């Protein structure tokens, strides 16, 4: 009988542990599966990516549609090349779309904002491996201050 009570207590202990794990996994962790389903990749070159990191979100009008999956320097001109993994669910972007690196809030993380372009008969849709050429770089505070000071000097 004593051994049965021991088994019961240990069983409850293990169940309690599993419940705690489920709580952590489902309540505390990121379960929104934006990039776990089918995805496709789009590339974009920037002059300066600022504080953009791998796994930074890609947003259209504030809605997360994908994440930055790789950042590297490309080609002879050493331009930062950003690989974006976007959910197949959002696959209808035209190649006139533009991307810019934005900052959430005054001190927040940087993310990529995608502005869908217009669609008519002559434009094609972006597919896996395509490039977006219309890009705006990150705002670097030091550059802004430099421009401001330079502008003041000219007056």
């Amino acid at each position: 009988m004593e051994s049965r009570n021991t088994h019961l207590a240990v069983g409850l202990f293990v169940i309690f542990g599993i419940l705690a794990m489920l709580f952590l996994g489902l309540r505390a962790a990121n379960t929104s599966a934006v990039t776990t389903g089918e995805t496709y990749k789009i590339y974009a070159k920037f002059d300066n990516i600022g504080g953009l990191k791998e796994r930074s979100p890609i947003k259209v009008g504030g809605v997360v549609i994908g994440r930055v999956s790789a950042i590297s320097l490309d080609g002879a001109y050493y331009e930062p090349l950003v690989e974006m993994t976007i959910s197949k669910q959002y696959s209808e972007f035209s190649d006139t779309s533009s991307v810019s690196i934005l900052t959430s809030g005054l001190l927040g993380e940087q993310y990529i904002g995608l502005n869908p372009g217009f669609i008519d008969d002559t434009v094609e849709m972006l597919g896996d491996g395509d490039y977006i050429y219309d890009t705006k770089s990150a705002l670097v505070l030091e550059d802004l201050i430099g421009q401001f000071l330079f502008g003041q000097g000219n007056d």
Partner: protein
Amino acid sequence: MFDRIAALGKAVLDTVAGAGAALIMLVRALIGRPNLRKSWPLLMQQMYSLGVLSLLIIIISGLFIGMVLGLQGFTILVDFGAEQSLGQMVALSLLRELGPVVTALLFAGRAGSALTAEIGLMKATEQLSSLEMMAVDPLRRVISPRFWAGFYSMPILATIFSAVGIYGGYLVGVQWLGVDDGAFWSVMQSSVEWQEDILNGLIKSIVFAFVVTWIALYKGYNCTPTSVGISRATTSTVVTASLAVLGLDFVLTALMFG
């Protein structure tokens, strides 16, 4: 002069021999054909005394640490108007560091010292020798179930610690100080990653479980079989295990998040 060098050499040799003896003890206790029918009740008994009986101290300290994190984090974050990030701060500090480390320290104090004292006393009263006289391997019969019980219990305890701690942070942050309920959870969810945070925390607690239980068992098995010897071994278990946990935590953190 030569005496000092000789003393240094002896200390080094003793350390190396101790590490080797500990490894041999562990290997001999764990390798071999497991006899599930016999070892299952022993394992359950040890899971009860190491895991279930440690539950209360883990839950209470988890709750209080979570609440303190909530309170301290709130007073700092509110200066920047960023008190909605409280959930992120509480969850990340618990999952990455405090959960595994504090659980390991508490476990070393609560269960590790008890293990050392128990085995040390078994040795002092020659119970281990009597087992050997009866052709029962004390390593398989005494050490092995205790090792596995500690190894399984501590990750479970660390998970419970983190979960309870997050709830404690929620109680203070949301219920008492008025952080927005939805923002608390959604900021936490957008920053906590399965693999990066939860899985790495779990790996940490598994490593700590291995080290703390091993140290406790070896110190008990290897103690001088006198009352002074047992007392020294128990103290040494808590000190060595705590230092090992803190040192290993730095190494693991550097490997995982560095």
